[in-house]
């Protein structure tokens, strides 16, 4: 029952919509190269980022 | 406004030459606040408190206070005062009776937050039935709020206690609110001689950096700071934090004892302590007792008097010691329930010698004769 979001780097275009939809702080980050990083330990797996992602680059498992 | 210079509390209280004035209790409050270097005061009307806060408004207009406004109700006033105190300023407010009860939730909150607020309570009866007359019942409700509680006998006491309350409240090891209680009308509206410190002197300002908790101003570390945190998870660890926090509030009141001793000359005042019959009282009941003792004396009865100035902290050991020597202890009170009698009985070993009478309420005064009757009864037993 404890799951977390994962990002498919291939699909992600770094639009940051996931960051703006995540209810938890300091979970999804982005670096200068527009790589999305997810702090798995802190993710609650709600799935809002999955729904928000236009590229279907996120999954919760 | 007179130009004021900052002096030490000791200078202001004990060294400066005082001037005798013939004023009411409400005016004594004004005089105390003038010298107290208060930053901010918030008011709300309720009889018999209103006059004092009008007068505080007047000295705001004269420049003695930097900010003043009328809040929307007592609960809101006590909340706003808390907000101001958290921001690190010295604040004052006052209320009475139903106002005290309306704001009740805030008082344990003040102590829990370690706010050195000084609030004057001009006690009166509480509903129902509605009355605006003197009655000290509200003090019974307040005993476990964690606030320090001083009870003024007269205008002079009210003046000194309000002024000194700021100094006691702000000691870093105390730093809890102080309620200064005065019996409505009997003190607030009675004109009497009061010795006032010079108007050109005032207390040093409050220093929030010496507080046991950080000021909420984003200028004090730590930055991540919540006043006051939820230590309310259900686990032993949180319980222990919560319990220790409460114990620390009780400890703060204990630490106040030495400051009450040095600034107010003790938690109690005793006259003729070796007498067989002792009267123990606080507030206006002390004055009535003084008259009764005079009368009793003329009848050849020797009666001692214990005036309790501080109800929280309570002079438990002193009372136990004094009562042990007496044959009878009379406790006159201005309320129907006899809360002071309960406190005293809790402190003494032999409760059978404690007489909880007379009790007057509904707004009447307590004729000294009523107390004399009790004295005679005790003397004849």
């Amino acid at each position, binding site marked *: 029952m404890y799951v977390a979001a994962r990002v498919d780097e291939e699909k992600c275009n770094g639009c940051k919509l996931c960051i703006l939809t995540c209810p938890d702080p300091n979970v999804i980050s982005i670096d200068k190269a527009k790589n999305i990083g997810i702090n798995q330990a802190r993710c609650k797996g709600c799935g809002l980022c999955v729904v928000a992602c236009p590229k279907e680059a996120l999954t919760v498992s | 406004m007179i130009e004021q210079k900052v002096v030490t509390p000791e200078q202001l209280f004990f060294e400066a030459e005082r001037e005798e004035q013939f004023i009411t209790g409400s005016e004594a409050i004004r005089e105390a606040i003038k010298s107290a270097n208060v930053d901010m005061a918030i*008011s709300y009307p309720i009889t018999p408190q209103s006059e004092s806060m009008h007068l505080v*408004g*007047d000295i705001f207009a004269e420049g003695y206070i930097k900010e003043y406004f009328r809040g*929307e109700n007592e609960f809101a006033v006590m909340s706003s005062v808390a907000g101001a105190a958290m921001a690190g300023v010295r604040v004052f407010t006052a209320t009475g009776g*139903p106002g005290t009860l309306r704001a009740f939730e805030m008082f344990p909150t003040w102590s829990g937050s370690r706010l050195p607020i000084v609030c004057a309570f001009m006690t009166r009866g509480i509903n129902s039935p509605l009355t605006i007359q003197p009655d000290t019942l509200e003090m019974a409700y307040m005993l476990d709020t964690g606030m320090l509680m001083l009870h003024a006998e007269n205008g002079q006491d009210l003046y000194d206690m309000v002024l000194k309350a700021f100094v006691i409240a702000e000691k870093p090891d105390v730093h809890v609110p102080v309620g200064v209680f005065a019996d409505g009308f009997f003190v607030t509206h009675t004109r009497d001689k009061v010795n006032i410190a010079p108007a050109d002197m005032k207390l040093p300002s409050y220093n929030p950096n010496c507080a046991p908790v950080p000021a909420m101003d984003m200028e004090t570390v730590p930055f991540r700071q919540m006043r006051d945190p939820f230590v309310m998870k259900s686990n032993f660890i949180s319980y222990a934090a919560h319990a220790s926090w409460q114990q620390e509030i009780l400890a703060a009141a204990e630490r106040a004892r030495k400051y009450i001793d040095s600034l107010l000359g003790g938690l109690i005042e005793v006259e003729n302590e070796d007498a067989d019959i002792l009267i123990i009282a606080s507030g206006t009941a002390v004055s009535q007792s003084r008259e009764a003792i005079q009368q009793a004396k003329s009848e050849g009865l020797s009666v001692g008097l214990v005036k309790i100035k501080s109800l929280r902290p309570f002079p438990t050991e002193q009372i136990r010691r004094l009562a042990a020597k007496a044959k009878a202890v009379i406790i006159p009170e201005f309320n129907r329930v006899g809360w002071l009698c309960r406190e005293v009985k809790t402190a003494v070993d032999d409760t059978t010698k404690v007489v909880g009478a007379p009790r007057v309420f509904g707004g009447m005064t307590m004729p000294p004769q009523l107390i004399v009757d009790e004295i005679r009864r005790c003397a004849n037993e």
Partner: protein
Amino acid sequence: MSLRILKPTAEFADLLPKEYQELVENGPYHEQKGISDLGTFKEIIEEHPHCAGCGVALGVRLVAASLPAPADTLIIGTPGCSFFGLAQTALNYSNTAFGNQNAVASGLKRMLKIRYPDRNKDVVVLVGDGGIADIGLDMTLHSWLRRENITTIMVDNEVYGNTGGQESGMTKEGQVLNMAPEGKKFPKIPVFELARTSGCAYGARVTVASPRKIGEAVKKAILVAREVGPTYVQIYTPCPTNLKFPPDQTVKVAKDAEAGYYSFEEFISPEAQEYMQKTTKAV
């Protein structure tokens, strides 16, 4: 009420003090009385200890004369000048703690609906400005938001009169009063506008300079409250004592205000409008 309870027990009828006998014989309970009948019937307020020229006393008297069904009206008040007169009213009157009147009225109205499902029991709140706009604002607004079937009437003297003349939320901006030593720093609270936003089906703003308007507004407000929803009437009742004008000037002060910032205003919801038309026709 059942008028039976207004009937003195035969054996004791002649023992009743005169004021009660008059009330029984010539009170406003039996037939509809109104503002225009004042002076011809025994008023339900026996007397009052208000100051000479008191606007609040006048306002309270006019409201009492405008009740559409005094025999089934219960008034809830609160501490303040208004209750001195109301305590002498030949109605059920209650005040408890300062500012809680609309909460008390909510509970009372609902209980009376339970106990008398087939009868109208008009619950009317009649309170000063401090009680409604300051300390009791929350409970006033929430009774409106919940759409309680009660009428709220404010006698607005723009000051805490009873505690010695402090500035209230309804005081005019700039006015110097106790607790506003540098003058009040914000405008009058727009309770009238808030009444509309908060769900009142009818609202009126009047002054004691227009007694007939008070009569109409109070009647409408109480009728609408029976069936449609909460209603509000705000009456300007100037205070000669604390605002320091001669007692004979109360109505003039009110009249001047009416010409200016206290102009007559009224709003009514379409539903209330429809209901009023129906009731008037029925009458």
